[in-house]
């Protein structure tokens, strides 16, 4: 079989279309199922139409305008829609309105993703731009110090006229852009200064979970770009030392460790959440109690930190493992994009996004499963929260931006090698600025 005919056949079968259709059908029927539970819920019907539509727009319609990695898009959108679904299923019990809100955030997330794709795709000269981003990011992350609100022991929220915002989530995007830019230019000092200021501010706000993720991402990026094991090792040691320091310095860190070791010891107070999460997961068993059933709302903060436990109760631990596999696919695609990037800035950016998403997933899911102490970070794409969802979609946008540039480079190479201009050949697009 010749190469071109095989290519044509794969076009005809269109596996991406099948995958997206399956996902849309899944959510359509899932929302209808809840809508018909008890009396009719109009919100359920709305969501049954809106969520599949959003999935279609993000995974099938947008990629018409630029090349994109559709598997990555499908997985990310599946997770976002799953968050909406699970939140909506708890709404009926609690009388909250999380599902609808999350659907709106999901729509906003798609917009932000588009912006990020365009940003990476069309900006070729980042020098000035990075300065602006860095300054804005530092200003934003320091905002809660001036007029912040304390939530669960950390002062990392700002509330402006009724709209609450978590700056550290938005700054994630800036952090990755700034860090990978300076690393690709081999300018270590601005890199270090920016990272240290961000970390310091977060520590000061006692947002230790996010600080941990920033720190580990920066360290991974440093290792990936330089391969300097000595300094990376020193960084790990420093991180461990500050963790020990934090343990003795902050009472709420000490409490979390004690609760992690034995959540049943102080069940009534500090151990309550993790014990309830474990009981939720256990009562779900292998296959779960079923969508919309069970009692997931018993768990404190079921809608953000503990949402993985809610998923496990309703769908079972096997589904939970499948979710982990989806995140693994996301990581693999991210690494693939990073590997194919022609410019080291793009490669590091893609790798940084991958590392950050993976670490955040591990920190929260490991915490819910009692593998590591629980820290209050959100589960990417799934947890309730506008800022978190939007910034995660932004991260996917950065990845897609790099992927689209990669694809353009490949196309360029292909055209060059097939142009057959005798005597003179165009340069290959492997330029590292």
């Amino acid at each position, binding site marked *: 079989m010749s190469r071109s005919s095989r290519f044509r056949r794969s076009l005809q079968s269109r596996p991406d279309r099948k995958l997206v259709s399956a996902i849309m059908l899944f959510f359509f029927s899932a929302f209808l199922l809840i809508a018909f539970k008890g009396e009719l819920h109009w919100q359920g019907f709305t969501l049954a139409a809106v969520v599949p539509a959003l999935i279609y727009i993000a995974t099938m319609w947008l990629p018409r305008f630029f090349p994109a990695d559709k598997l990555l898009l499908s997985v990310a959108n599946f997770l976002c829609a799953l968050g909406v679904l699970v939140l909506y299923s708890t709404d009926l019990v609690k009388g909250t309105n999380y599902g609808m809100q999350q659907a709106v955030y999901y729509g906003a997330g798609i917009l932000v993703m588009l912006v990020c794709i365009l940003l990476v795709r069309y900006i070729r000269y980042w020098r000035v731009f990075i300065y602006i981003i860095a300054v804005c990011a530092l200003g934003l992350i320091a905002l809660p110090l001036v007029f912040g609100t304390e939530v669960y022991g950390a002062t990392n929220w700002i509330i402006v006229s009724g709209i609450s915002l978590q700056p550290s989530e938005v700054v994630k995007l800036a952090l990755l852009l700034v860090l990978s830019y300076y690393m690709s230019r081999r300018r270590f000092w601005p890199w270090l200064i920016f990272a240290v200021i961000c970390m310091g501010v977060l520590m000061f706000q006692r947002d230790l979970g996010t600080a941990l993720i920033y720190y580990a991402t920066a360290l*991974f990026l440093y*290792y*990936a*770009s330089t*391969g300097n094991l000595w300094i990376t090792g020193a960084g790990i040691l420093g991180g461990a030392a500050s963790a020990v320091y934090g343990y003795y310095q902050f009472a709420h860190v000490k409490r979390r460790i004690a609760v992690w070791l034995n959540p*049943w010891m102080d*069940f009534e107070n500090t151990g309550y959440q993790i*014990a*309830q999460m*474990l*009981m*939720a*997961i*256990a*009562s779900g*068993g*292998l*296959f779960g*109690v*079923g969508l919309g059933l*069970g*009692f997931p709302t*018993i768990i404190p903060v079921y809608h953000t930190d503990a949402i993985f436990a809610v998923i*496990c109760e309703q769908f079972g*631990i096997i589904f*939970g*493992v499948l979710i*982990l*596999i989806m*995140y*693994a696919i996301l*990581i*693999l695609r991210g*690494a693939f994009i*990073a*590997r194919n990037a022609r410019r*080291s800035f793009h*490669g590091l950016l893609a*790798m940084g996004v*991958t*590392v950050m998403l*993976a*670490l955040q*997933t*591990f920190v929260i*899911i*490991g915490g819910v*499963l*009692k*593998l590591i102490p629980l820290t209050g970070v959100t589960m990417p794409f799934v947890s309730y929260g506008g800022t978190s969802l939007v910034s995660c979609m932004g991260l996917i946008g950065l990845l897609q931006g790099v992927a689209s540039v990669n694809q353009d480079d490949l196309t360029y190479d292909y055209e060059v090698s097939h142009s057959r201009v005798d005597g003179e050949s165009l340069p290959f697009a492997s330029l590292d600025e």
Partner: protein
Amino acid sequence: MKPLHNRFRLVTLLLIGLLLLAGLYGVYSVTVYGNRWISSSRNLRYREAKNEVIAGDIIDRNGVVLATTDEDGGRVYQEDQEAREAVVHVIGDRDGNVANGVDSFQAGYLLGFEATLPERILALLQGEQRRGDNVTLTVDSMLNTVIVRAFNTHVRTQEKSGAAVVLNYKTGELISLVSIPVFDPVNITDAVKEDTRHPFWNRAVQSTLPPGSTFKIITASSALENLEDIEEREFTCTGATEVMGTIIRDYGNAQHGKLKLPKAFRVSCNNTFAQLALMLGDTALRTTAESFGFNENFLFRDIVVENSVYPTENRTLVEIAWSGDGQSQIAATPLHMCMVAAAIANEGVMMEPRLLYRVESSGGLVRLRLTPREYRRAVSVDVAATIKSYMLDTVARGTATAAQVDGLSIAGKTGSAESSLDGRDVTHAWFVGFIDDSRYPYAVCVFVEEGSSGGGAAAPIAQAIFRYIQAYFPFQ
């Protein structure tokens, strides 16, 4: 770009590994600890499920219904007060005072959490209230009543407390599990709540106690395994052995003179076993104890058992010498000591204790059937046979003659364990033993708190158990 890509690959593998670890850990902890989490008395969803699902019945091995649900969703136990009191620690009570009774520990089955998707859909379509699964236990509830009666007859102290366990040493089925004092689950009085003996405790699986001389089964096994020609060696018992300034005495200050291991076991000579422990050393003795399940995290599927301890810290010579006699911070539950005797009976193989005989859905689908499972090999076949001959001898003409039953060949070992309770020095009585007969493969452990001597207080209760088995159990 090559080294950069290699590092990318390394980082990616590391991240994938982390997620894999989380997934594996999640599956592991749900399968191993899941029941323990669900059955927690603090599980609110379990209480809420009671409103939606009719809890299944609990039935004993002879078909006696031990617990069922009435029309209002309340839990109903047996009519007869004596009968429902005798199994209260196995079943549990409505308010969850007893930890990990079948009623709460098997809530996954009883409240229908294990129902499959088609069953759930069917129940939904029929519009009926869903019924949980019916659980059949391996327990013979009549034997429980017999044991409670035997405690009342044979224990002379006013405030009786103790425990008894009977299990099938070939399959691990728990035939009986009793903790004294019992209480009435439908009428929990203030007197029960304020009783200093804590009637809610399930002593058979929750109390870890010094096993006393019953531990000599393990010391003797260790000696037979590690010391050559130990059966031929002659020991001298003057009634008191001095170890580093501390004197080890025998029960009742007995003097046994010159004796060999079989006789020392029969008369339960503390001096000889202290010397054996010193000859073995701490490591050898601990290794044998651990092969019997000490210091092991018991994660049995059907029942929650407190872990037994062979101490690892502060091992002076005095402590090691006392270890040979089952003192010195060594602690085990009555169920575990029963498993020790059962391992000797079953040619050195310890079976996992089982409590569920069958689980059946309300529609008649059998969800689970008992499958015996080996827990671990405790000792070699030869050593088990030798120890068995010692134990037969102990019942025939040693400290445990009170456990003899005409027509059965019984093996046993008594124990009198010194312990301090609320600041007082007290002596607990133990008996562990089994019927050496393949038609009646049953092992027994009786523990009487403050019963002073094992031969005097515990062995007669064991005798009553053996007699019941002889009279009412079918040949296997």
